[in-house]
């Protein structure tokens, strides 16, 4: 008997087991060639066979060495369940099957904490799914017609002053604005969230950017895209399309050398600046770009050597909110001549209301948006312990912040944007609508975009390999062979179509409640079938 040690890793320890049907396999090798994780290989095995070689049946059972496809028993090159083998197999001979008895998480800590991409796999609860739009116009007032009426679907990005602070004077019976006010852009209430070049392949980033361009130029929807913390291509920085982009600055300041150098050559202002303090997927943990993904062009754009790039968990030199306001907000505002709104993104936290209150009361009135990112936000790479065990749901946090502003009569002055899990079950419009009724001015999405490009990862442990550089869909990798799998034009088209449907679906939700502009704070339009959720959010409980 062959020696066996229980400490050896076996295929049945892994999260996915390959279901291979040798009788269907034609040995074409496509699956092995396709598997970016090297989780399967060709092996030669001694197999029992019954063969008949005469003109009439003469079955003989014999053993023969045969080539087979075999799963690798490795904690490094393990099957992620991406299913590329199944897609490529011409004969339905292979597919991954989830292994409920996996011991992978337990066993893979030999080289420190587990790292992965994706979003939390433990906290997939869906508060938004126990809320429905329950205040439908019936008799008391007419519903609008989503197809016939006009709807004003825009959200503010920038610091809004209270009416009393507007520098108006009256001349000839007309109001005249005498002084400058902080810049505010009214944009589409759906921001393409910060995924960097580096986290994404350049082609994937380009596909998202292409969709943004198309939505703006051809569809009339002012959708904005945040660059992520990884800089932007110089030719984009100096083009007119910069106006559609929100440039992100995070604690690593990656890409800012190039951005600053491009500033004198910019022909237009960017749509905004987003200071990233934290991220919902890994709050309190900095950004992470594994060495495997730091390709040559990523090194160039970020001005870094080939090494794992870790953004610090906080901005060096900022030790309080006041500091943040005075240093970062002011310097970022000043950098663009106070013409570009500067907003801030934080991970949702038990402290979010305190942060929001501080920003609301800041005497400089300089924060142009508060982005709250919930625990269900995605990431390119993080320690699994952060992904699964840190964070805060975003829904109640948006509500808490909105109500904190209401209490002070300051709602709407610093626009609230919510993200992290928006569109998780496919319908971002419904999620966005409910978030807006609870007080968000708009939402931001990331994961749903790459899912539209072809990402097959989910929150049940499928793939989640964004950190490896081996993304099987060519989205989160810089490997040229894998990147070729992504068709930029079709990817961009998919995003455009989704946003157009999003727009139509938003109208389908606005019309029944009789609103032609966005129902920000219209909590009366929502009801919940969950008593605890209804109570927490201050909406009607129904059953």
């Amino acid at each position, binding site marked *: 008997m062959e020696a066996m040690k229980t400490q050896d890793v076996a295929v049945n320890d892994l999260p996915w087991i390959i279901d291979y049907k040798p009788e269907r396999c034609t040995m074409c090798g496509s699956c092995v060639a396709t598997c970016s994780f090297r989780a399967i290989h060709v092996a030669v095995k001694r197999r029992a066979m019954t063969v008949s070689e005469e003109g009439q049946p003469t079955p003989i059972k014999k053993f023969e060495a045969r080539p087979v496809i075999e799963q690798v028993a490795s904690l490094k090159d393990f099957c992620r369940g991406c299913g590329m083998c199944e897609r490529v197999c011409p004969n339905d001979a292979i597919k991954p099957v989830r292994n409920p008895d996996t011991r992978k998480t337990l066993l893979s800590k030999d080289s420190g904490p587990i790292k992965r991409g994706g979003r939390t796999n433990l906290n997939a609860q869906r508060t938004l799914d126990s809320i429905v739009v329950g205040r439908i116009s019936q008799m008391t007032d007419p519903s609008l017609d989503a197809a016939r009426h006009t709807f004003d679907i825009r959200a503010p990005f920038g610091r809004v002053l209270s009416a009393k602070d507007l520098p108006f004077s009256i001349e000839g019976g007309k109001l005249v604005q005498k002084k400058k*006010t902080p810049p505010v852009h009214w944009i589409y209430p759906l921001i393409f969230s910060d995924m960097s070049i580096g986290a994404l392949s350049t082609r994937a980033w380009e596909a998202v950017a292409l969709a943004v361009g198309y939505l703006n130029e051809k569809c009339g929807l002012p959708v904005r895209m945040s660059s992520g913390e990884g800089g932007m291509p110089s030719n984009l920085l100096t083009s007119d399309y910069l106006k559609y982009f929100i440039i992100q600055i995070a604690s690593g300041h990656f890409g800012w050398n190039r951005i600053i150098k491009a500033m004198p050559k910019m022909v237009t202002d960017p749509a905004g600046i987003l200071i990233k303090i934290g991220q919902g997927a890994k709050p309190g943990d900095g950004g992470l770009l594994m060495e495997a993904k730091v390709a040559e062009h990523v090194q160039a754009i970020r001005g870094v050597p080939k090494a794992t790039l870790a953004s610090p968990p906080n901005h060096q030199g900022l030790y309080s909110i006041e500091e943040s306001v005075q240093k970062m907000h002011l310097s970022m505002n000043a950098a663009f001549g106070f013409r570009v709104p500067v907003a801030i993104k934080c991970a949702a936290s038990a402290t979010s209301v305190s942060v929001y209150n501080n920003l609301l009361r800041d005497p400089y009135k300089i924060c142009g948006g508060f982005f709250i990112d919930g625990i269900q936000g995605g990431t390119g790479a993080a320690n699994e312990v952060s992904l699964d065990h840190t964070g805060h749901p975003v829904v109640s946090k948006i509500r808490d912040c909105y109500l904190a502003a209401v*209490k002070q009569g300051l709602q709407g002055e610093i626009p609230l944007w919510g993200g992290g899990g928006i569109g998780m079950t496919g319908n971002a419009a419904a999620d966005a609508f409910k978030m807006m009724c609870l007080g968000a001015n708009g939402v931001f999405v990331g994961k749903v975009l790459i899912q539209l490009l072809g990402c097959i990862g989910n929150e049940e442990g499928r793939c989640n390999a964004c950190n490896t550089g081996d993304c099987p869909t060519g989205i989160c990798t810089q490997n040229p062979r894998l990147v070729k799998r992504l068709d930029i034009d079709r990817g961009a088209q998919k995003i455009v179509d989704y946003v157009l449907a999003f727009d139509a679906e938003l109208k389908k939700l606005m019309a029944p409640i*009789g609103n032609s502009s966005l129902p920000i704070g219209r909590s*009366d339009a929502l009801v919940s079938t969950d008593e605890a959720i209804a109570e927490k959010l201050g909406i009607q409980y129904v059953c």
Partner: protein
Amino acid sequence: MCRIGSIKSKVPIQPSKALHLMLPQQEGHDNSGFAMVMQDLYGIFSNYKDKPLLSLACTQKGAQLVEEYMDAHNFVQLAEWIPVPNKEPGLDIKAMPYYIFRNYDYPEDIQNASKEVKENLLLDTRLALRKLLEEKNAGFVYSFWPDVLTLKEIGDPRDIATYFHLWDDNGCLVAKSIVAQCRQNTNYDIVRYAAHPFFLQGYTLCANGENTFYTKNKEFQKSLHRGYIGFESDSQCFLNTLHYVHHELKWPLSYYKHVITPLPFEEIDQREDKEVLTAIRQSLANLEINGPNTIIGVLPSGDMMTCCDSKKLRPVVVGRTDEMVAISSEVCGLNEIMPDRDESQDIYPNEREVVVINADLEVQRWKQ
């Protein structure tokens, strides 16, 4: 659905005129109550036009509480009209024991104070009386303002008019401006405060419709001004906004329409005044209204106005003669009180219009 109506006249008119305006529209307003605000009073109040007039419906205890409060705060009673009701059997009215309409002189130390100080005192006094009466469940105070009288009651408007002798046309209760409405609140609890017209510091307003931005209006208005209270009806939000824009921010009236029904962004971008309109839209996004609505408002100057929601989902028509201008939800009301008017002069305001009637009955149509 309500029906609303108002009359502005060169000669003082009786409340019965307003009833004749409203009753033909009864299929729409269900006859469940009657409420009116009369301004620019003549008849028995002619001599006290500059003195604040308190309009009150209360119990005996309430009357006593009010008297004590006013005495304690040095208001001096000048004139009083306590209607002696016609209590004939069979009238459909849920009457309060007492209706008091009483003129006061300002406390001596306020006599020479500024207009603003006086306005604030009158508001604070009304709010204090309201609180006092609410705590003891002893009545309702509707307005406390010079030259303004408010009456609200639950029941059939015809019977309410009989009860108060409003059909008698005896000349004691007349005014040049009346805003009226013939229904109790149907969306929320029936409380007298919920019946429009509503009144606040010289501003009167009634609305026909459903303000679907009620919650966000209310949440914002609560912290804007101490006078924005109650919120028994979503229509009160229109009055608060009118007061806030015109009285507090002191913006020209034309901007009221830009606040409640802002132009779409695409249209704002085409305008010369886009900077101002955008700033208004973003700073007062919480005062925008939605849903089907028509409003009628009266300003402290006496100017009367009407406008609609941004999609004109509720009707309104303005009719006029040389002597009188009337605003009505339905034209049948105008036909009743001014059958001989030139109908071709009737105005059906569109969704972008504000119609304003000034003291000389000049009708202006403002385009948003």
